[in-house]
């Protein structure tokens, strides 16, 4: 029994044992509350009111349902019959064998289904041809897809997309960073597949950053609504709005690093500076109070160099700055040198930096 203070109507209604008392579902609660009200006569009116409201709420009716659930189940099962044929395997076969078998069965199955479908409905199925854009370090690219969607692709990124979109969906796959201005089509969901999440929109502008080595996927919305459907089952999908950023992190929180399991976390940041985050597409290299360590990663991708910071305290220094693309990496370093006494040396494309 909880030792709480009961003074008013809502205190009673919030209490579980009070609910049991009104329901008479628990002897202990029943005698407890009988004694309690005998001991607190001043609260009798409140108590009585709470009992009446509680009784009303408890005596709710489960209204009859107009749906025949047996019928519904039948149609569910037949639906499953239609889709479920591709997975007849059992779980106790060694996993590796299973995977190999799955690949073979799947390929054979796909070929077979492809064949059958083509024979049955030659007009319904379009053959999907994918293109892939690979943007090397130090470069940026842009593309306009068949539906008019405009995509800017940042350095060290690859984007896979169908040459033409089908009617029902518009899927692309991204590794790295890209900025999307998706043409609105309420009948066809535009989906960006990344390693950590499926990002779904109907027509919006947003930025996705999902580099494999970053161990996270950041989605920032500039306009419209974006739905994030994490790949991992244990994270719930979320909807994010303009100026929000969803971060799915593959690294567990430092405080609760348990076992070796990688536990991805989803967090949402509000009021992010979208201008800074998307400045790369306008060829502006912008740092907004970022650590030198993070800036170095950006510069590596931007200028196609390798940067080594030799002092740990230097890695944590924070800088704010804005550069246009035609400045060289050395000009950026010189700018940093104006505030922090650093020396740097370059060999081929490896730049090492340390404090003076």
């Amino acid at each position, binding site marked *: 029994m909880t030792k709480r203070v009961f003074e008013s109507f*809502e205190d009673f209604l919030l209490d579980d044992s009070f609910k049991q008392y009104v329901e008479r579902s628990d002897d202990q609660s029943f005698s407890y509350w009988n004694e309690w009200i005998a001991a607190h006569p001043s609260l009798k009116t409140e108590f009585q009111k709470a009992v*009446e409201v509680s009784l009303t709420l408890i*005596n709710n009716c489960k209204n009859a349902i107009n749906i025949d*659930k047996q019928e*519904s189940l039948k149609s569910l099962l037949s639906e499953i019959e239609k889709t479920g044929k591709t997975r007849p395997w059992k779980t106790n076969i060694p996993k590796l064998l299973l995977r190999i078998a799955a690949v073979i069965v799947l390929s054979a199955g796909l070929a077979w289904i492809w064949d059958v479908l083509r024979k049955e409905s030659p007009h319904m199925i379009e053959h999907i041809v994918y293109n892939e854009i690979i943007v090397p370090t130090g470069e940026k690219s842009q593309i306009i897809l068949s539906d008019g969607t405009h995509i800017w692709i940042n350095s060290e990124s690859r984007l896979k997309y169908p040459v033409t979109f089908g009617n029902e969906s518009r899927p692309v796959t991204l590794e790295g960073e890209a900025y999307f201005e998706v043409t609105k089509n309420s009948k066809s969901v535009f989906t960006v597949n990344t390693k950590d999440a499926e990002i779904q*929109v109907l027509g919006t502008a947003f930025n996705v950053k999902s580099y494999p080595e970053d161990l996270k996927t950041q989605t920032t919305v500039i306009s419209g*609504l974006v739905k994030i459907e994490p790949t991992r089952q244990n994270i719930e999908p979320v909807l994010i709005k303009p100026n929000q950023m969803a971060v799915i992190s593959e690294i567990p929180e430092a405080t609760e690093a348990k076992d070796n399991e990688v536990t991805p976390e989803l967090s949402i940041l509000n009021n992010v500076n979208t201008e800074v985050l998307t400045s790369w597409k306008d060829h502006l290299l912008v740092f907004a109070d970022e650590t030198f360590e993070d800036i170095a990663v950006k510069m590596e991708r931007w200028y196609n160099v390798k940067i080594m910071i030799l002092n740990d305290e230097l890695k944590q220094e924070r800088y704010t700055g804005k550069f246009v693309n035609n400045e060289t990496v050395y000009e950026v370093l010189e700018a940093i040198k104006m505030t922090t006494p650093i020396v740097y040396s370059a060999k081929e494309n490896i730049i090492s930096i340390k404090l003076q």
Partner: protein
Amino acid sequence: MNRKNPWRGFLQGERNALSEIFLTYHDDLFRYGLKLAGNEETVKDCIQELFLKLWKNRDNLKPVQNIKPYLLKSLRNHIIDSMELQKQNASLDSEIESALSMSYTEEDFATGNNVPEETRLKVIQALNKLTPRQREIIYLRYFEELDFNIISQVMGINIQSIRNVIHRGMQLLRDHMLILTFLLWISGDPVLSF
């Protein structure tokens, strides 16, 4: 434990377990879904889609001890998703909550049971003056008989917030009932006619 948890069978791909789960929880899911979405056809489709999705993804699903809250939560998410995707074009800043607007009718509560009819009608009226979130918590607590801990899981809100929201809700409920009593008193009408 004299019965096998049907969820385990479900995960192993047993059709019987699927049928058992579907038939056991269908009505609760349907009533809750109907309160949320307000349209029978939508809810019927959502339940079908939900089970189909769960079945297809069963290899990736986790064991679940308590099936009912898990399904209620999944259905809730599914309904929100389908509603949100529908109206995504309509307005950019539409709140998820506004999509889920439950209302209570007289049919939801039984007469008699030592409760004055006047109180019953006042409770129903007052309930509909609460926020959608407060109404939903009350639904889950009294219609689905879930405790606050489970409600917080179903709605994806932490338990302290649930307590705060419902505490405010109950205060409002009492205030509305007082106002209704007052109106009744000045109108001198023994039968409620709002």
